[in-house]
């Protein structure tokens, strides 16, 4: 993709998705919601939300990287 294509794509995106302007204030006071969140019981640690599949996938990726170091740039590219 050359610079001309890049500019064309940028213009297309800008036409499809205009910037958010002006209305950048919440409709309501968020402090009561904030207090509610602060007083709520602590949520579970993020890691506790991991499904077994996430763990298996992580182990597979580490194993793949260890066995085939050449795949590391490819993995990083898709992260």
């Amino acid at each position, binding site marked *: 993709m050359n610079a001309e294509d890049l500019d064309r794509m940028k213009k297309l995106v*800008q036409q499809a*998705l205009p910037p958010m302007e002006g209305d950048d204030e919440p409709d309501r006071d968020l402090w009561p919601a904030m207090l509610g969140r602060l007083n709520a019981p602590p949520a579970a640690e993020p890691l506790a939300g991991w499904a077994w599949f996430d763990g298996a996938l992580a182990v597979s990726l580490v194993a793949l990287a260890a066995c085939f170091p050449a795949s590391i740039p490819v993995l990083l590219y898709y992260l």
Partner: protein
Amino acid sequence: MQIGESGVLNRFREGNPETLEAAFEALFRLHQRAVYGWILRIVRNPSTAEELTVETFWRIHTAHARFEPAQGFEGWARRIATRAALDWLHTRRPECELYPEASGELAAPATADPAIIAEIRARTALAFGRLPPKLRIAATLAVVEELPQKEVAAALGISVAAVKLRVFRALRLLRNDLKRQGITP
């Protein structure tokens, strides 16, 4: 007795239970609008932005001990807000509701068939919503919102070169997606 923002920041950083809550509320009231506006630019949905503003300040509250007053609150809050928005994007499948523009109701220039232009814009908005969240955030802030790349880099915690790369990859993926739909930008 009134204390300045630096005093509030120091009290927030110290985390003394007697003064932390008051300092946090002061910071919340001072910065909620900026944080909300930043998140709104990323998620483009007011109610989600409100929800994520609360989430962001909750993360700020729990991380008060890691705050460095010398680095400033705004940039720190913005990084946390960006992270919260990114986490939210990761949990969502690409949906039309993220991009109301995808309804095809945008005004089209009179120089071409308005229906076709509206259709292309709608498909572009949908394809944009299908981009990987990391690329989508970079492209949203740098291309849609036209923010300086340095500002985007600071919010994402990456280098300016990495922002350029993410934007390039986002636009290339978008172009390929549109080509598969028979649209040649």
